[in-house]
Every structure is written in structure tokens, then in C-alpha cells.
């Protein structure tokens, strides 16, 4: 692959995580922040969110818009199913560290 092609690909690569059709979405909690902070999912599809908490302390994944709530112990993974959803922005947060742990699901 040429240098130019790589550059174009890198620029075109969205800064947010993108779900392949029906694919799982991976989300990391590190230093009480979500990585990536925004995730894109297709509209009208059920999506499996896999949230990995890399911190030592537990976190609660919570979203009023998505109607989801789940505790994730320190150094562990949790599975959360969301959707199918209408297009829009659905914020979520970590209830135990609300100041820093903020994110959103973008449905398109």
C-alpha cells in the first residue's frame, strides 16, 4: 500500500467506533473514561455492546435514553444488548464516575 493511500484511509477512518452489520461493539473503561467516547451503530438493529472495565474499581454503565443499567466489576467485561433503535444520539455515563465517564451511542 502506498503512503498516500494509507494517509487517505487514515483520514477517512472515522474517529468513532463503527459497528459492522450485526457485529459486536467493544467499549473500554480506562481511568474512569469511555474509549471511544462515541460509538456508531446502525438503526433498527439489535447490537451487542461489550464493555471492558480496565480500571481496578467497579463502574455502573447507565443510560436513561437507552434504558440500560449494569454494574461492571473492576478488571472485567460485561455484555449489554441495546436496540433496535431509531436514529439519534443516546448518551450514556458511568454512574460511579459521572464527571469523567461520559459517552454516547450514535444511531444512524
Amino acid at each position, binding site marked *: 500500500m502506498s503512503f498516500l493511500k494509507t494517509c487517505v484511509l487514515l483520514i477517512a477512518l472515522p474517529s468513532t467506533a463503527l459497528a459492522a452489520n450485526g457485529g459486536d461493539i467493544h467499549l473500554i473503561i480506562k481511568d474512569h473514561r469511555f474509549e471511544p467516547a462515541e460509538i456508531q451503530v446502525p438503526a433498527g438493529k439489535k447490537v451487542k455492546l461489550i464493555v471492558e472495565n480496565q480500571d*481496578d474499581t467497579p463502574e455502573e454503565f447507565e443510560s436513561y*435514553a437507552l434504558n440500560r443499567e449494569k454494574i461492571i466489576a473492576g478488571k472485567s467485561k*460485561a455484555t449489554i*444488548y441495546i436496540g*433496535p433503535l431509531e436514529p439519534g444520539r443516546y448518551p450514556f455515563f458511568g*454512574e460511579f464516575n459521572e464527571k469523567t465517564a461520559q459517552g454516547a451511542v450514535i444511531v444512524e
Partner: protein
Amino acid sequence: MISAAIIVFRETLEAALILGIIAAATKGIPKRGIWLIAGVVAGVVGALLVASMTEQIAAMAHGIGQELFNALVLSIVVVMLAGHNIWMARHGAHLARDARQLGQDVRAGTRELPIMFVVIALAVLREGSETALFLYGLAMGSDQGLITVLNGALLGLAAGAAAGVALYLGFLRIPSKWFFAVTSGLILFLAAAMASQVARLLAQGDILPSLASPLWDTSHLLSNSSAVGTLLHTLLGYDASPAGIQVVFYVSTFILIVMGMQWAKKSPSIKH
């Protein structure tokens, strides 16, 4: 400190309100206090156990152990609250005249208190385990010191307990003529609200389909993150953006309990 207080308050509120309703509904039954306190103590012990086993519970059933566990706990509470209401409807004819008469009915007490013990223990267990985990995390990674965290937690706990006591005292001001209608009514809504939570958990774990998600969205009118929204969520099961399956569970539970109460009223009552 304030953030710790707010979260502990939020987590304690539900258990405190349930405790307030049940303390009112069982008023006058001999030895009620001991049973209710025992329920809280058992709930706290259970909460610490559940909190310490979070990882193991979560790992069960291919990562949806937490949803299944909470759904099971809530389902038991729903069945018990339903049983309480149906039993009360059966005996309502005697009790409606004077709430205190319940206190003289020893059989009422011996039958109701163990059920309420379990309801309180499970309500405290559910909310308490989340509080314990939060405080553990805060104390572990805290740069503000353990004492500050504990002070915040105690403040939140006190505020939550105060809300429960306020509800209880409010109940006691209700004229005895209406007392059972109000307590049974609230317990009916509480049970339906919990059934809706069971549906949410099962949809979150992909055991049940969401059906429409959401069925409606009133979060711009009254968000579940607001104080009023939280209160209505706990007491009546208000959800700003519920999944269709939640509404199905809510309405069916509501109708089934009302039908059970109607049936109990009509069937021949135990003679006194």
C-alpha cells in the same frame, strides 16, 4: 463528598420508600418492628455478599448472570407483593373499618410478617449491593480520603432514610377509611413497576425481545434523571422511554393482581 452523598441517596431511596410503604401497611401487627429490622439487617448482609460476588454473578449464564439474578430477585418481590395485596383484599371487609383491627388479628401478623421480611431483605439487598460496590470503588481510588467518602455516604443514607420516614408518616395521616385502599394501591403500582424492571433486565440480557424500543419518549417532559422522575419511577414505575416489553409486563402484572384481588373479595371470607 457531595457526589458520594447523591449516589448513595439515589440507591437508598428505592429501598427506603419500599420500607416506608411496608412499615405503614403492616402497622399495628405485633412484633412488626423486629421483623422489619431483621429484614433490613438480612438485606445488608446479603448486599455485602452479592457485592463481593459481583464478578462471579456477572460471569454466569454467558455474561448475563447479573440480569438474571436481579430479574429473579425482583420477580420474587413481585409475587410476594401480589400475594400480600390479594390476601389483604380477602380480609379487607373487616380491616377497612379500622386499620388497627389488623393488629388484633394475630393470624394476619403471623402470615404477613415473614413475607414482608423477605420483601424488605431483597429490596435492601438489591440496592445495597450497588451502594457497597460504589463505596468500595470510591474508597479504593479516592484522592479525597476515606473519611470524606464515608461522610458523604452517611449523608446520602440519612437523606434516603428521611424520604422513607416522610412517606411512612404521610401514610399514617391518611384516614383509616382510606388506609388500605391507599397502601394496597401503592403496592399494586410498586409490583407493576418491578415487573417492568424485570422485562427491562431480560431485554438487556437478550432473553426477551424489546418489542418497540422505546415505545414512547417523554424524556423532554419528565426525565428519569430528574428528582420527580426518579420518585415516580420508584413508586409508580414511570419510565420516560420504555421498551414495549416493559409495558406488556407492567400492564399484565397490574391486571393480574387486580383480578386476584377481585376474586379474593368475592370468595367466602374466613370467619372471625
